[in-house]
């Protein structure tokens, strides 16, 4: 009797899990498997043909460009991540602990999301007239007498790329951090205060450890988004800078799918390693 019930329980469990498993298998595992397979294929100028060749990887690891481009990608990632974290944490802290009423918290939180009502590309391109040689930023600085010559590095530079990244992705940091902060039991803060902790000590000893999962989730968002991006780098650097995403998009544009696939595989593994390292610090599953 009991064994019969457990079989049917098993079956229900499998059935309930299968739709998700099926969706993931079809739309995640299969495409990635395909990319891995194609990365070993050969290519002529307009077609790709099945083969098992290591040429694509050999070319990738044999080219100095690859290393400099990966280095650049890491640089963009690290700087954008640090800035997003600093700004995102501050904003979330303000929203969670300084705004008293829930209504205002919700209102201000929604205000943060307003820029996201337009597309990524538009938010990015709107920087161009602002930062350009004759743009608003330069004109303002000149009229204030701070500079004599327009600053060239404001636009079409690595500075512009990082600025756009921070602008685009800080919200992805704010949301999870705010979320975990809201779940912190306020009595803990009172207890810390009663025990004589200063505001800074409360921040580092109570709030920071308790918001770690939020920080980690936000960091994963930012790191994966920045490492996989190509369009921001293209527009904001005026095509003068390259990251791995642009390497892939150039290959795709020139019909070199196997080469693009090989680069994608290496990028995917790199991102997974980075996330793996990040997850060593915080057990998200345990702390959620």
């Amino acid at each position: 009797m009991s064994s019969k019930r457990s079989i049917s329980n098993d079956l229900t469990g499998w059935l309930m899990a299968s739709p998700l498993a099926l969706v993931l298998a079809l739309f995640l595992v299969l495409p990635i498997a395909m990319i891995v397979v194609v990365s070993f294929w050969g290519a002529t100028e307009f077609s790709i043909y099945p083969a098992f060749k290591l040429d694509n990887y050999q070319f990738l690891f044999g080219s100095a460009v690859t290393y400099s481009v990966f280095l650049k990608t890491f640089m963009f990632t690290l700087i954008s991540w640090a800035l997003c974290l600093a700004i995102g944490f501050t904003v979330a802290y303000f929203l969670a602990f300084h705004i008293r009423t829930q209504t205002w918290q919700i209102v201000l939180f929604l205000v943060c999301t307003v820029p996201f009502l337009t597309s990524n590309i538009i938010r990015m391109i709107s920087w161009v007239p602002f930062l350009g040689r004759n743009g608003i930023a330069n004109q303002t600085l000149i009229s204030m007498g701070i500079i004599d010559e327009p600053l060239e590095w404001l636009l079409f530079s690595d500075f512009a790329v990082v600025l756009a990244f921070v602008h685009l992705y800080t919200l992805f940091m704010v949301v999870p951090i705010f979320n975990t902060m809201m779940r912190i039991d306020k009595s803990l803060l009172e207890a810390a205060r009663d025990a004589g902790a200063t505001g800074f000590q409360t921040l580092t000893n109570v709030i920071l450890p308790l918001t770690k999962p939020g920080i980690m989730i936000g960091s994963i968002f930012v790191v994966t988004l920045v490492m996989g991006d190509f369009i921001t780098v293209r527009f904001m650097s005026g095509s003068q800078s390259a990251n791995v995403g642009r390497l892939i998009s150039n290959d795709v544009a020139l019909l070199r799918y196997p080469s693009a696939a090989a680069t994608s595989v290496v990028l995917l593994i790199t991102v997974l390693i980075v996330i793996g390292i990040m997850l060593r610090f915080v057990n998200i599953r345990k702390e959620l």
Partner: protein
Amino acid sequence: MTETPNSKSISRRSVLKGTAAVAGAAIGSGVVTGFPTIWAQNIKDVTLRQFGTGVSNLNDVAIKVKEDLGFTLEMTALDSDSVTQRAATQPKSFDIADIEYWICKKVWPTGNLQAMDTSKIKNFDKIAPIFTTGKLTPESTVAQGTAPSTVGFVDGKDGTAFAKDVTGWMTLIPTIYNADTLGIRPDLIGRPIDTWAELLNPEFKGKASILDISSIGIMDMAMVCEAMGEIKYADKGNMTREEIDKTIAIFTEAKKAGQFRAFWKSFDESVNLMASGEVVIQSMWSPAITAVKAKGIECVYQPLKEGYRSWGGGIGLSANLSGLELEAAYEYINWYLSGWVGGYLMRQGYYSAVPETSKLFMSENEWGYWYEGKPATGDITSPTGDKLAAAGDVRDGGSYEARMGAVACWNAVMDENQYMVGKWNEFIAA
């Protein structure tokens, strides 16, 4: 095994087109069994899917086609790389390919296009000789690069090799072409510019740009390097590896020294760079100059002593076209060459393949200004109504003969293309 992009396009198509495809097939079979009288009504149900660069994929053309011919033309505008990609890998996603001649050289061997019977093309004998014999006048020589005449014909309907001479089977019906040069902002430069070498002049440090489309960009680079006296090419349209290395090296050095403000990939980017004053000298396309001028900003398509880099586009038919849809496509081509489109394009600053018929759709003033290089006798406006020139103005570079006669090379695809592309990627990443 099928390759991914192919299978993807089929499923996308089948989802998007759905019942329309079925209806189309039904009509097609009706024609095969032969009821010529239903043709006139059925053609209204035909939809031809055309794709190409933004240059000639104009909505106005689609509207006019519906008006004059009755069937629907669906336009998709893409950049040159994507156009090549689609023509080569997704043959079922289009009926008409509006591509450049160098793309044709790349795509024709895939068998995705079918040759056209010139006897079905009414104005064939009026097509500008630059596309047939390759010679503007009997004395001219064919320029370097992928000259349209060298890839314009095949031996038969199913021919795969390009014919040397004019045959009865055309690969592309020429539609538009032009001679490209550098665009400059005379108000910000303040002195005459007469050579390609000026692009790398340190005077314009941080204010120059070049286009980030490898196959065209490399040609502009070659024009510059040759003008600087750094490299002498046997054929700029078909460089050797050493020539590619040297050319890219010169430009990489300039890039590292901060010569370029940005690189552009799309038409709009080039317009914005120039109009905003971020860039004062750059590779540019004719309508981009027009667009900058239309904003009331001075901009010149500067003729240079080394000559022009020229390009030509044409319409090719998908190998999948047959029956009624093929007939409609021929209708469309004949209509295209009959003058209305030609006049429209000429008023944008391009040349049409059959100037004779375009003339019928232009005023004497327009014809004189755009084609003959004469001073305008009144305002010259773009097809959309923006004023481009006033009475007395002369077109940059002058007449058709003066401009097309000074072509130094045609856009091309090289034998060492793969190698060049690799090098180009290095240049962009450098």
